[in-house]
């Protein structure tokens, strides 16, 4: 177990440095260099800027400096937001993304798991078909269509919430609802499939034979195993939700990480693109590790191996 965790952390560190390298290499493909967006800049001022950010050094030295920044956890300054460290910017965008993503995750689980279980317990009935159809429709509704419609209905027509922006304490509701509904469709499908498969297994028959009540069979025995595929899906999904859905943050104009990333990518703020990609990779690694540990805890047949 300890060996497994250590080896996964080592693997995660490799991922993080690979991500730094790739994002760095991509950002170097820009024609004109990083300070090209500065308007009316004299040649000396541009040189001074490049000197200040270390952009006049050879690429390999610059990459080494990046590695040093991240290894020492002393993150560099943004090119665009002068004087602000990239960690400060992440610290301002992440709470927005995390509030929306966390709420969306709860909504997705709150709708998806009961809906999937409901369908799985009534195979091939009308209820099963109806909820499966609803889940399939949910999967086929892109967030860029659902988001503006939700904003139109609850924001502009009913005026229950702001249609966009991040001003009131309730502004997380509509974006979280958009994401939650869509993710709940995936979770419902996964829950239904895996619960039905689990209910057909031998140990369920054993549980029934020893006289366990139907509720105990489903919730104590079957759900424990049936939740594994859902967990597996939730690892990367949770990381994606928490770091911000690019679409939903654009639709609802939230000052989250996704918006910062797109802005940084388009205006050449490479320090920030590297930092946000790296942060995202670190979260994916952490969630995958968490999922693996939870899976081993839930399924005695899984043994973690390095």
């Amino acid at each position, binding site marked *: 177990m300890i060996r497994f965790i250590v080896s996964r952390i080592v*693997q*995660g560190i*490799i*991922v993080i440095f*690979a*991500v730094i390298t*790739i*994002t760095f290499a*991509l*950002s170097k*493909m*820009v024609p004109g260099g990083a300070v090209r967006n500065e308007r009316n800049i004299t040649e000396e001022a541009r040189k001074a800027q490049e000197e200040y950010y270390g952009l006049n050094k050879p690429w390999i030295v610059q990459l080494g400096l990046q590695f040093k920044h991240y290894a020492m956890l002393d993150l560099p300054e943004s090119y665009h937001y002068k004087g602000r460290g990239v960690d400060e910017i992440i610290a301002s965008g992440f709470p927005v993304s995390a509030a929306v993503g966390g709420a969306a995750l709860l909504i997705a689980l709150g709708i998806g798991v009961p809906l999937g279980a409901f369908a799985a317990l009534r195979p091939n009935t009308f209820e099963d078909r109806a909820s499966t159809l609803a889940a*399939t*429709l949910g*999967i*086929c*509704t*892109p967030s*860029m*269509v659902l*988001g*503006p*419609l939700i*904003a*139109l209905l609850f924001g*502009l027509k009913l005026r229950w919430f702001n249609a966009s922006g991040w001003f009131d304490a309730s502004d997380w509701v509509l974006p979280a609802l958009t994401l939650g509904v869509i993710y709940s469709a995936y979770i419902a499908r996964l829950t239904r*499939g895996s619960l*039905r*498969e689990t209910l057909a297994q031998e140990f369920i028959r054993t549980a029934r034979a020893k006289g366990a009540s139907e509720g105990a069979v489903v919730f104590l025995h079957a759900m424990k195993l049936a939740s594994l595929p859902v967990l597996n899906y939730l690892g*990367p999904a949770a990381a*994606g939700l928490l770091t911000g859905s*690019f*679409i939903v943050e*654009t*639709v609802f104009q939230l000052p989250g990480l996704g918006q910062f*990333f*797109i802005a940084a*990518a*388009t205006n*050449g703020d490479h320090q920030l*693109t590297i930092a*946000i*990609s790296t942060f*995202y*990779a670190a979260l*994916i*690694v952490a969630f*995958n590790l968490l999922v693996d540990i939870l899976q081993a805890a839930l399924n005695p047949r899984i043994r973690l191996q390095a």
Partner: protein
Amino acid sequence: MSSGTKQSLSPMRAAWQRLMRQRMNACALGFLAALVLLCGIGPKLSPYDQSQQDLELKATNPSMAHWLGTDPLGRDMLTRILHGGRVSLEVGLLATAVAAIIGVFYGMTSGLAGGRTDAAMMRIVDILYAFPFINFVILLMAIVGREFWLIFVAIGAVEWLTMARVVRGQVLALKNLEFIIAARACGAGFWHIVWRHLLPNVMGPIIIYASLTVPGVMLLEAALSFLGLGIQPPDASWGVLIQEGAKSVESYPWLLLYPGIFFSATLLALNLLGDGLRDAFDPKSMSQQ
């Protein structure tokens, strides 16, 4: 179907028959065929050009002249939706093809090599799964350019991981079966075995997984275009149209609804077809449908 006829069918033909026996699958396939046809020839038959503006007309409701109305620039929505559909479908299919080629090549190499090479190649795939690919694609689009070929190559280059795993698993399961050993004993060369014996038997999973990849890829393209990083106006894809519709959703909700409905219906048909193909190639899973 009697067992007599079943014997004489190739696996592909049998899967096709099982696929078409479900009415839902036939409907999905029919819808997609009609859509491909409409998007292919519709824009040519239309009296309007997709980017042709009529600034006096502005946004209108559906009418005899414009069956799905016009957008705020007076462009015919039906023509734009069909043209956009063609672009979206092209990106979806081409990106899936790129992903399939990379995935099949990688998975086959890994499965056939076996041993340490296989372990190392699969460890690389494991590591790549933790990469924030959406960030890479956005970055690539933002800095290198927003060209059509780059969109599907970039999307294809990040969507091959699962395909590689699927193919490798199949190759591992197949490569030591009797018919492969028999072919080798008969003196068949390496490429002959790969091409004539291995690939046809891996085709089922490749088709299934590819059909499930297309909707994901189309969503990614739409997302990029929605963010202004994919197809650039005045050219249109469904992502572009949805983005333009979302901007004016308060005044003209149908500008969002029409392309949205086309897009969702297409995703639905592709998903149904993907599920249907999985059941058709694996009769055991039929009971779960």
